[in-house]
């Protein structure tokens, strides 16, 4: 049954997954062209010095992308469920409702994690050619909250989409927007590291929010 449910989710989200992969690949290519140009024009000494002294990261262009893609992904997965109340049919599958919701979210989170993992591996592999490990680590540490914002953004999108009452959706959106701002604060490379466990805790907590919307949907809240 879970395989069938995953296939259903795949049908809904495959286009957006492919689009996300293409957008991220294009951005990676752009970042590496940019880095190559910086080293060619300014020289390695100048680029390394500026990176160390001014805490410049070549990954700043990626900042909003994981979040935007995850919201699109969440919308593509959950809006069809809410149109004509199709979620009712899904919840009538021969599985417990909690298991159905958990599987749907697990599918989405797995998809995003695979996408982000591929991106991070490409970034680390590519940048290690140009920079020493400390600089690459610092850049990855800077961008880690943005990828976590992607995961949180997806979960908040699910929470908002499944919520049956429009007024409550607006409140949920305000709460989610403010919560996501904690992932996007401007900070020096590595400054976010003490906060990462709290961001992970937020993601774990946010995972349960969709279940609350689902209960409200099932109860017929209007």
């Amino acid at each position, binding site marked *: 049954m879970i395989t069938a449910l995953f296939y259903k989710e795949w049908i809904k989200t495959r286009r957006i997954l492919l689009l996300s992969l293409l957008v991220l690949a294009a951005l990676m290519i752009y970042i590496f062209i940019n880095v190559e140009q910086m080293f060619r024009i300014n*020289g*390695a000494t100048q680029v*390394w010095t500026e990176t160390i002294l001014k805490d410049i990261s070549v990954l700043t262009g990626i900042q909003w992308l994981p979040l935007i893609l995850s919201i699109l992904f969440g919308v593509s997965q959950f809006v069809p469920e809410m149109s004509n109340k199709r979620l009712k049919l899904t919840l009538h599958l021969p599985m417990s409702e909690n298991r159905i919701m958990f599987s749907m979210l697990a599918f989405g989170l797995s998809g995003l994690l695979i996408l982000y993992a591929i991106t991070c591996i490409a970034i680390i592999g590519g940048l290690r050619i140009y920079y020493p490990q400390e600089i690459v680590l610092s850049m990855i540490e800077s961008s880690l909250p943005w990828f976590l914002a992607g995961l949180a953004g997806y979960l908040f999108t699910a929470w908002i989409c499944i919520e049956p009452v429009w007024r409550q959706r607006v409140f949920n959106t305000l709460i989610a927007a403010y919560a996501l701002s904690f992932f996007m604060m401007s900070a020096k490379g*590595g400054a976010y590291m003490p906060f990462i466990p709290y961001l992970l805790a937020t993601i774990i907590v946010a995972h349960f929010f969709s279940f609350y919307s689902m209960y409200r949907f099932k109860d017929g809240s209007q």
Partner: protein
Amino acid sequence: MKSKQAIYIQILIFVTLIGMCAIPSLCKKTTYSPDDYPFVYYSSILKELCYIDFQNKETPMRDGAGNLYTTAQYDSLMPLFNFRQLMVDNRLPDSIDGHEITPPVLMSKSIIYRYSPVKFKTPDVGLYIMYESMPKRVGLELPDDVFRMKDKIEFIDNASNTINTQKSKAFRQALDKAGYSFPTQWVAGNMNPHKRYDEGYFCLDYNRQLFHVKMVNGRPFVRNTHIGDSINIEGFTMYEAADKRFYGFLFDKMGNAYIIESDEGKYKALKLDIPPINLDHDEMMIMGNLLYWTVTVTSKKGKDVYALNSGTLQCVQKIFLERTPGKWDNVSAWLFPAQLTFEHNNSDFIYPRLTVTAYKAFAVNLALALISGLLIPNPGKKRLFNFLFVLLTGIAGLIALLLLPDFSTKKIKSK
């Protein structure tokens, strides 16, 4: 249904925590203004700390007794602070207290240093630039490599992104010879290529010994300062003073401040004659001249100002300016018993900090709790829950209850 209730509580706590950050932050934006202290500087003529109001164009200076001085008098009474103006007016004295006064001397003895807790609470990439400390040409040149020093010293060539084994080996041998123990606790230096000259880095080794490491004529220079024998070192900031009198400012674990002087090839820590500062919260500013250093320490209570003899760093006068609570202090004391912040004035790191401001705010909490518990129609249990929750969390909790569904049972029934 139990799961629904449990998740509701989770969401409620989450939204309340967000509110404990958002609402005080918004309120602070509208009410906060920085503390306003007068500028204080030690007059080498009057021999006392004087107050300067730069907005006042007629009588900008006031002494401790309250006497006011005109702009021309202010320039003359603070010749070491206003020497550029006195030079233009051709009024610069030849000497003060037997010390010859010339612009080059005054400029070389001029010190401005600011300590902020952020200096020691900031992420470190772990890569440093080793300049040639005795360059053959004027000015510093960027080297072709950077170095890491956490577990071992390694120079990494910029162009090839590979280890320069020869240079790394030379420095490793010099460190071993000087008795340096890895892993390094921290490395402090000034990497700005526009500085006057280079004095390399001061590094605290595993045994809490402070080493001076630099490159002279392409060769490693490593010395144990032995300052760690007598001082429990917390941190160091390189200053590279214009007159090359000292290397920088050292702080011990207690918060005492020192300068590290060079004394015939040896290193000497000279303590500033001021009480220990709180390295986590206080800010310190040093404005030094040929004869006196004016040191201001800003804490939560107010601003302490000390005048030190520039040679001995002994205190010659001190005053305290009490802090007057601002609008934000009063508002926060009444409205927010606790605030959650993620960005901090004293650290570059991001982490949650719950600050309990004042217990007065529980009076407001009680009023809000009574409204939510008594006036909002709900079953008994829900009334009690809302009452206790708002009593404990105040405005943030009330807003969280309002934002989430089912605040009022009556409302649901009416639908």
